[in-house]
């Protein structure tokens, strides 16, 4: 636990948000309730081109909660790009991501942090939340389950549920990963590619209370297959020199 005098946060919560106005204030309240006194954090919203007043709502929340920061894309770029912008702007060495739709429960954050801290420093590349009971339509649940199975057997990323918004990744590890739209579904595989360990933590899934989903079957299927094959290839083509030492006389 960092001392109260620390000037930088220990963890930055990066939260991509697209038209999630009504979810911002309750989410921030839940995060503060879950983490106050446990860890020094900042909340970094990335508004991916919302047009429902999400940015204004974030500003309103900033008046009450000084640990909230926000960046904005001038046009919609996608969730992976939003995460990347957030990670780049983050001030903490550790990044935790969660979805803005409040289907992830911030109360699960301490367990995710604990899983990271339980392992030796520098060994963990990704802690991935695993939703134990999905609260989505049967079509989304079925397509997710199939996609997870195929991805897991091809990429051997040992992850049941790679689509869960809860992920914890060291900032430097994230920035060393290949960046493309969809990469947020491959964080465990990409961390493993770098020779780092993965930890899974069971988390709750809640039904969406407000706002609407941006994902369906068809905007995930074809690009998902392409992404998976490209990641599979990049994993095969990763060569680790085992160790690099500087030689000196």
């Amino acid at each position, binding site marked *: 636990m960092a001392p109260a005098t620390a*000037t930088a946060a220990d963890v930055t919560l990066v939260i991509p948000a697209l038209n999630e106005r009504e979810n911002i204030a309750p989410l921030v309240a839940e995060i503060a309730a879950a983490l106050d006194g446990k860890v020094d954090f900042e909340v970094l919203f990335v508004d991916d081109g919302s047009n429902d007043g999400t940015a204004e709502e974030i500003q309103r929340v900033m008046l009450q909660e000084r640990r909230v920061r926000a960046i904005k894309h001038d046009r919609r770029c996608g969730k992976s790009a939003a995460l*990347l912008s957030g990670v780049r702007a983050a001030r903490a060495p550790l990044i935790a991501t969660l979805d803005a739709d409040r289907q992830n429960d911030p109360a699960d954050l301490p367990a995710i942090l604990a899983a990271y801290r339980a392992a030796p420093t520098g060994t963990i590349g990704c802690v991935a939340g695993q939703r134990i009971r999905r609260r989505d339509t049967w079509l989304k649940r079925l397509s997710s389950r199939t996609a997870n199975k195929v991805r897991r057997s091809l990429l051997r990323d040992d992850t049941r549920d790679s689509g869960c918004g809860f992920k914890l990744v060291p900032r430097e590890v994230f920035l060393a990963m290949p960046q493309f739209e969809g990469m947020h579904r491959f964080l465990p595989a990409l961390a493993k590619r770098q020779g780092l360990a993965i930890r899974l933590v069971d988390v709750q899934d809640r039904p969406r209370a407000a706002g609407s989903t941006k994902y369906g079957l068809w905007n995930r299927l074809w690009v998902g297959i392409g992404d998976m094959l490209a990641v599979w290839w990049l994993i095969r083509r990763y060569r680790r020199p085992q160790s690099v030492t500087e030689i000196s006389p």
Partner: protein
Amino acid sequence: MPGVAALELSVVVPALNERENLAPLVRQVVAALTGVARFEIIVVDDGSTDGSTQELLRLMQQEARLRALSHARRAGQSAAVVSGVRAARAPLVATLDGDLQNDPVDLVRLYAAWLADPRREAVGLVAGQRRQRRDRLSKRLSSRIANKVRRAMLQDETADSGCGLKLFPRELFLTWPVFAGLHRFLPALAKSSGKRVLLVPVGHRPRSAGTTKYGIWNRLWVGIGDLLALWWLLRRRRDPGTAREFTLPASSETCRPTDSGLAEPHPLPEPQMSDR
């Protein structure tokens, strides 16, 4: 080490079993760059078994600007370049092959092209283009076809992406995906990062010592796979070029990607312009 902070150029040389080429290589790089830039040479020994390490230790006694990295096991040319770039202390990195087929004098041409560009902050790569290859017919022919196909698919506008002579900003390189074969896709990656590529004609010399590690078959299939993977990933790249931090009220300042400085307490609730 003296003058570390003032280094302008790190020359990274991947080398696998090139013992006999190392001494002339170092001599020629030093001769070419002395007085041109404050430089260091980093030879990355990718698991050589021919005594390259001992040779490098010997050369370091004579040349203080020479550094050497050693891979515990062979990891390939791209991995060697990546290790070298990570270890580099200058903001700008130039690469050349360890086989002396690149002429170190051409490093000066690459560096000069970068320096001479009025918008060099927008240049992501300076790529050497071999005018006349000094290789076997089969290699020249397979390279030509590969370059054509790659160029058509990735639109990287580069006639010769396999030339070992390249120059790029260190920080930019470190944002690119690492994989064996990366060194052939630097023009496409630089362009996908929104940067310009400068092409500079360079010479090419026949190999005088050591042996090549490349043939047709160890480049063809992996080359096709690399090309398809890169083609897909570059299609899937969404660059949020204008991510801005906002505070109170809606103000906009460009958010600097490398800014990870210490947090200052936000002076709230005073409405203010973001200053990051």
